[in-house]
């Protein structure tokens, strides 16, 4: 079809050229011969037809060109992705079959449509990538939030010993202000040589390794013990399978260490406390066996010491067992209405010989009123003995201990006041903690660090009472116990 059209156009062109040539030739000839002949007329008609044909052809050409221009103009405003590869977009003009520009237009439209399709694919891929990136970013943020929430400091380095990750605990512990994104050498940031060496040592291992050690990190009093677990991690670079980084996770074991130390001190203390009465029992038993008692009075004295020391040993064992029972939650409390003064008087009698031996003035100022309380008699007796023994222990020779009781509102109160070494504010807060012993007074007297914790348990957990201490360092302490009253106010029979 196109070929026929081309031949037709060529024919029109050749005809037009011939007619033009004939016309020119005729005008030339007329100008020489004068009047036109019938042959001249024929030539004129031919010339006219040729001219009209050429005009018509030119007009058709222009019309096609304008249609094509409109088409291209409209095409330039159409988004490439809106062009389908097969369908004709509705908003584009249609070029006729005869339009010479039609093939160009079709080629251009197809190219634009392909371009549009590629854009659409790229945008889709970009969308997917962005969504993935968003998910990764969120996941990363979540991981960092989880890491930051961890109390355990976490630090990671890459194959070049550069810090690539720290969590909030690690930043706080090592006073650093970088989260690892800056990738600086760990040695220049973390000022803890032992930890850095442990991490570098792990990182240098050729195979996957996990190691753990315990390190003391910090300065003097601020230092803490950490269980440090270091392990190799894969390299950040995807193509680097030979080298790896290392991560260290630190766990604060100071509490555990302190508990171990306290336990060791406790065992040592208990052992000492047990050995001292045992030493007395053994020594006097041997003296008796060797016949070293000169007379009956001496023999009696030796036996009395053995009995006293046996009681002392029993008290210690009772204290230990009571505490163990309380901690195991298997305490049988048998509360009965009792006269508090009677129990206190008994405790007073128990400790009086110790006070006398140490030349401490022990005075009883118990209330003349009947102080009724619903109490476990043995426990309150133990409590009063513990408080009085402590007061005597920590009061220097020649000092005084006062033992008082009274009624206040709906409570019965007793207190032990001494002129002893007293407690600092820090020690006041801690004396009721298990195994805690005032450091500066340890040499002054033996103790298990159990008496006051036991007292607190007995008063607060078993009797819904309250135990308080008032103290001035170097001047003495007053321990006050308040218990709910249950009795009537009568004059004591004693």
């Amino acid at each position: 079809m196109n070929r026929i059209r081309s031949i037709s156009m060529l024919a029109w062109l050749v005809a037009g050229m011939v007619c033009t040539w004939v016309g020119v030739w005729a005008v030339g000839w007329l100008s020489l011969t004068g009047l036109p002949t019938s042959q001249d007329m024929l030539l004129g008609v031919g010339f006219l037809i040729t001219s009209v044909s050429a005009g018509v052809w030119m007009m058709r050409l222009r019309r096609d060109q304008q249609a094509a221009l409109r088409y291209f103009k409209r095409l330039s405003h159409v988004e490439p992705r809106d062009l389908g590869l097969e369908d004709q977009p509705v908003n584009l003009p249609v070029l006729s079959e005869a339009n010479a520009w039609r093939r160009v237009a079709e080629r251009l439209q197809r190219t634009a449509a392909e371009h549009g399709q590629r854009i659409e694919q790229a945008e889709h891929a970009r969308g997917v990538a962005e969504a993935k990136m968003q998910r990764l970013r969120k996941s990363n943020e979540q991981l960092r939030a989880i890491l930051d929430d961890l109390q355990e400091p976490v630090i990671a380095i890459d194959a070049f010993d550069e810090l690539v990750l720290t969590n909030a605990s690690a930043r706080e512990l090592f006073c650093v202000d970088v989260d690892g994104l800056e990738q600086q050498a760990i040695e220049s940031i973390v000022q803890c040589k032992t930890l850095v060496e442990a991490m570098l040592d792990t990182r240098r291992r050729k195979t996957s390794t996990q190691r753990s050690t315990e390190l003391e990190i910090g300065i003097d009093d601020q230092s803490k013990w950490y269980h440090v677990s270091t392990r190799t991690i894969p390299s950040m670079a995807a193509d680097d399978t030979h080298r790896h980084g290392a991560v260290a996770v630190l766990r604060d074991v100071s509490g555990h260490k302190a508990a171990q130390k306290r336990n060791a001190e406790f065992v040592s203390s208990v052992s000492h406390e047990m050995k001292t009465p045992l030493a007395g029992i053994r020594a006097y038993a041997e003296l008796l066996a060797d016949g070293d008692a000169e007379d009956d009075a001496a023999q009696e004295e030796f036996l009395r010491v053995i009995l006293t020391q046996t009681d002392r040993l029993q008290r210690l064992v009772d204290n230990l067992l009571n505490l163990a029972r309380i901690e195991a939650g298997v305490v049988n409390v048998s509360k009965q209405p009792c006269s508090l003064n009677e129990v206190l008087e008994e405790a007073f009698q128990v400790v009086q010989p110790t006070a006398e031996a140490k030349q401490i003035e022990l005075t009883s100022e118990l209330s003349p009123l009947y102080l009724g309380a619903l109490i476990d008699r043995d426990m309150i007796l133990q409590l009063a003995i513990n408080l009085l023994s402590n007061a005597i222990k920590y009061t220097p020779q020649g000092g005084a201990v006062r033992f008082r009781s009274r009624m206040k509102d709906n409570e019965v109160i007793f207190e032990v006041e001494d002129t002893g070494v007293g407690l600092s504010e820090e020690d006041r807060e801690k004396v009721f903690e298990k195994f805690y012993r005032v450091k500066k007074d340890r040499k002054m007297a033996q103790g298990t660090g159990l008496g006051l914790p036991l007292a607190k348990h007995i008063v607060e957990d078993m009797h819904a009472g309250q135990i308080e201490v008032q103290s001035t360092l170097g001047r003495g302490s007053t321990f006050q116990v308040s218990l709910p009253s249950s009795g009537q106010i009568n004059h004591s029979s004693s």
Partner: protein
Amino acid sequence: MGQRILLCDDEVHILRATEIKLSRAGFDVVCALDGEEAWEEIERTRPDLLITDCQMPRLDGVGLVKRIRSCQATRDIPVLMLTAKGFELERDDVVTRCGVKAIMAKPFSPRELLQCAQDVLTHGEIQQKPMLQMD
């Protein structure tokens, strides 16, 4: 007059038991309740032997021995040490640095203590070391 032994312990009943055992063996026994009191006694009477507890108020046994060793006049007094301490007492440290002849762990036998005291005062050394026990 027998040789003089200074006993130092804050536990009165242990002091008394040891005093009885040593006195009956013919020694002249002097007692002190803590390190400071013992030091005053040492300065005053120069005993031939010191038997001291380790853990005492005011001045403990190790402090007392160090003070004795630092003074020209008392540095040669032999010392036996008693202790109820366990693992935290570094035996070698006390024995080698302070020149303690022996450390006896509580509960101890007064009979063995007397034997040790006699050995030290007669021979200058403990003759039967296996008798001594350490934790």
